[in-house]
């Protein structure tokens, strides 16, 4: 029994101690944060190496009696889905901290780094928790640091944005808490002992009546749909992204949104097959609406950062569509899309931030001709834009293509896959239109004198963007190894979701 996963939770917390000791020294704080997140990244890659590909179950499991009087345990583990999301999280956090230490954050560095390390605990924890109580704690632990990051180091309307973000998220998650307690009570066996551990719940989910699942799935779905966000709960997202500091946007888009999609796959689908069936038509409809609506709204944005934010809504629409078509291709596509979106949109927010630091302009109309002055920046930006719109050979294509295959194969719901598949495919075309149009307006055209003297990307900025670029190409050219991780676990999730009588004995 290893303690790798607990180590992942402990490292950022341990990093807080030197951070507190050197709290008056901004330079030391930066170094501590960079070192901590780098170690965390290394451990998460080590964890990835330890993972046995091809097994559907949870691995590296650790269990500790935590609240014996309530039957709640500290239970962590990873399967093929979460094992990829954890290194993504640690990589994006490392990049965020590295970029922030370069001068993008000027005030209260120690507090900033503290918030980031706490945030990392929450983000990593969400993906490894296998007890609903623990999951909820990590889910909420992400909230307060992000609230502070947006509220203290954000843009001019940061307070409005951060309160909106917190209240939206909290409204969803508190209803989920009621749902969690309902599951807890329903899990009681003859002797009255109750549990929130996922493996146990998967065994006894047969006790959850269809009516019960209808309501409890709704409570869970609301929390995840707000986090993701699905239309119509997305209105907090543009505000939060526009006001957040660059690094905040990177992890917000890259990781926090994934917690919603992951929540559906980990808890929503496997635990409540009847609930999923009941809400499926609505969820599919909202996914496709998100794809089309996100794309159309992105097209008319004047603010570059807002455009990227709305494009997230569309991309997350693909994630939910892939999840709710309830077949293997769709599901694998959804998980890949989560990874891709993490790398690509994270990178786009990074580049928009870099650009803003130099020009202090974010309005598309104020930009232009950048290609001539910053060739390197343009190359990076171009690759990520192409990945975002789903160009074959880059990662965005793989995820969206699989989701589209899945949705074409989808049967059920009024209209079926031959309606929803093409409808979603229109979204891909729209993405090409708004992204290329934006690229053209920002990069080409006459060179602006004001920007001519500004330097291209610095070494630090390249160091931040390069790993994301490499992963974007790697996932695009060689998706198979990643799919091999995801497939067995996802297959099990789909079976659990489509067959209420299917039971698994996860591990004992």
């Amino acid at each position, binding site marked *: 029994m290893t303690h790798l996963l607990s180590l992942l939770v402990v490292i950022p917390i341990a990093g807080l101690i030197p951070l507190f000791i050197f709290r008056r020294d901004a330079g030391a704080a930066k170094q501590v944060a960079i070192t901590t997140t780098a170690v965390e990244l290394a451990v998460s890659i080590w964890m990835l190496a330890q993972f046995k590909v091809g097994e559907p179950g949870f691995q590296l499991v650790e269990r500790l009696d935590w*609240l014996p009087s309530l039957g709640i345990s500290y239970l962590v583990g990873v399967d093929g889905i979460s094992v990829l999301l954890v290194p993504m999280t640690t990589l994006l956090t490392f990049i965020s901290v590295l970029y922030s230490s370069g001068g993008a954050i000027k005030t209260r560095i120690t507090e900033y780094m503290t918030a980031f390390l706490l945030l990392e605990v929450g983000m990593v924890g969400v993906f490894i928790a296998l007890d609903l*109580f623990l999951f909820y*704690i990590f889910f909420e632990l992400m909230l307060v640091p992000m609230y*502070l990051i947006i509220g203290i180091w954000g843009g001019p309307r940061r307070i409005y944005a951060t309160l909106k973000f917190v209240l939206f998220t909290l409204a969803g998650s508190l209803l989920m808490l*009621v749902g969690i*307690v309902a599951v807890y009570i329903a899990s009681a066996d003859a002797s009255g002992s109750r549990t929130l551990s996922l493996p146990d719940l998967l065994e006894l989910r047969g006790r959850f009546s269809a009516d019960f699942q209808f309501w409890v799935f709704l409570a869970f779905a609301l929390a995840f749909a707000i986090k993701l966000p699905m239309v119509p709960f997305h209105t907090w997202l543009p505000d939060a992204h526009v006001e957040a500091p660059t690094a905040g946007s990177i992890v917000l888009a890259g990781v926090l949104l994934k917690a919603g999609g992951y929540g559906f796959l980990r808890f929503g689908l496997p635990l409540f097959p009847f609930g999923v069936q009941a809400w499926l038509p609505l969820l599919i409809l909202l996914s496709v609406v998100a794809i089309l609506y996100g794309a159309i709204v992105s097209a008319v944005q004047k603010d570059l950062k807002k455009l990227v934010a709305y494009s997230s809504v569309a991309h997350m629409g693909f994630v939910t569509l892939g999840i709710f078509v309830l077949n293997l291709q769709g599901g694998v596509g959804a998980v890949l899309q989560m990874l891709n979106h993490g790398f690509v949109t994270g990178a786009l927010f990074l580049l928009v931030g870099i650009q803003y630091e130099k020009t202090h302009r974010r309005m598309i109309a104020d930009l232009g001709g950048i290609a001539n002055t910053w060739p390197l920046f343009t190359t990076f930006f171009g690759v990520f834009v192409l990945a975002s719109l789903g160009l074959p050979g880059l990662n965005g294509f793989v995820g969206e293509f699989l989701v589209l295959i899945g949705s074409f194969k989808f049967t059920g719901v009024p209209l079926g896959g031959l309606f929803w598949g093409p409808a979603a495919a229109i979204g891909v075309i729209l993405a090409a239109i708004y992204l290329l149009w934006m690229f053209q307006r920002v990069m080409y055209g006459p060179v602006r004198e004001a920007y001519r003297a500004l330097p291209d990307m610095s070494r630090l900025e390249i160091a931040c963007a390069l790993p994301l670029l490499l992963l974007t190409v790697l996932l695009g050219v060689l998706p198979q190894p990643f799919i091999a991780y995801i497939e067995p676990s996802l297959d099990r999730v789909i079976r659990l979701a489509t067959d209420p009588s299917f039971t698994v004995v996860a591990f004992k």
Partner: protein
Amino acid sequence: MTDVTAVYPEIIVTAVAMIVLVVDATLDRRRAPTALPIITIAGLVVALASVFNDVPAGQYFRGFVTVDAFATFFRAVFIILAIFAAAVSPAYLARRMVPPGEYYAIICFSTVGAMTIALSADLITLFIGLETMTIPIYVLAGIQRSDRFANEAALKYFLLGAFSSALLLYGFAWLYGVARATDFVTIASVLTSQGIANGPTIVALALITVGLGFKAAIVPFHQWTPDAYDGAPTPATAFMSVGPKAAAFAAILRVMLGALGPLSVDWSAMLAVLAALTMTGGNIVALAQTNTKRMLAYSSIAHTGYILAAVAAAKAGPSAGAAVLFYVFAYGLMNLGAFACLLYMDLEGTRGATLDELNGFARRQPLGALAFAVFLVSLTGIPPTIGFVAKFVVIQPVLDAGMAWLAVVIALNAVLAAFYYLRVVVRMYMYEPEGTVPRLIPGRGLSVSLGLASLAVVVLGILPNSIYEWAREAALPLVR
């Protein structure tokens, strides 16, 4: 002799109060402000230790007093809260010329009253305890004699308190008429044999509910709370908002579950509705407040609603009792802490800081602001704090009792509350200290006790097992 050993803790706390008064009268005026809190805290620590003295559970003083796990739990909680209240007060009292001897003695006397409630096995003991607890608090509310608002607060609190005591006593009289006894066990057995509640029983139940509702500040019997909390000196408010509240719930549990348990079918739906009204009413009015002290006053009403929800869910069994006790403990810690954080600000009269006056507080007093933020996050119910665990354990019996609607009301209320709690955090952390920010008081005792309390809020939020276990055992004598 055994009768006396059963009430050692109460005797010790009373003795502490007396000693404080004597020392205050004999000691040099300049030394009193430092010596008295030390004497009080030391004495209360001794009393706390004596609570855990092994007295066999059972009835004492011919059935007027009962010592059980429930009494032990509440006695300990009351003493801990009194210690906390005494520890945060000295700097404020010195600045405002509040006579320290009377202040600490009042806190001790009130605590004795609260402890008596926890011990009561009889309506008469309970009523004596209730009065012993409240009368010192009337004085405490008006202890800043030269302040108009303090006088108003004391008078309002006294008049409504007296009124509610009369109602309660009248209810007790009706109950006596029904059961021909004043001890809880006999009342419960008579009510059980009686079967369906008849007219006089219903009258008694209604009067008792209203009377205790006043004491616990349940909507619509809460009107005295904001003014009394607002007008009282801030450290007194901090104590008033938790000690008497916890005592009121001890009384509610003793009476409702102990004596009126057989009527739970009649009162549980009523309490559920009152709980929903209380939390929603408290939160909505708190939203509109710009003064943090008043805001916290209304928010404490909202928390009453959450606790009451768990009482209403009593039929869920031991988990309901455990939820009430756990929430009372958590609430005491975080709410007293939150009020005490206002003590950093040097403001005229009894006023608390307005939102504007909190601007940039995190820059001026980083650790104080951190403690305040921890208490507020805990009051909101966000993990990893004890406030979250408290919400979790309250929702559980509520759902168990089949009141899903009430659980949803609790969740939605927590969102409402998040708005105004986090607004304070916004002011402290996200605004610059501009305009008229009040002078700050360097209070080491205050910082140390707030630091300890906020640490406890987080640590017990991560490791709540022992407290929960204790709360569940303590509730067993009443809820089975």
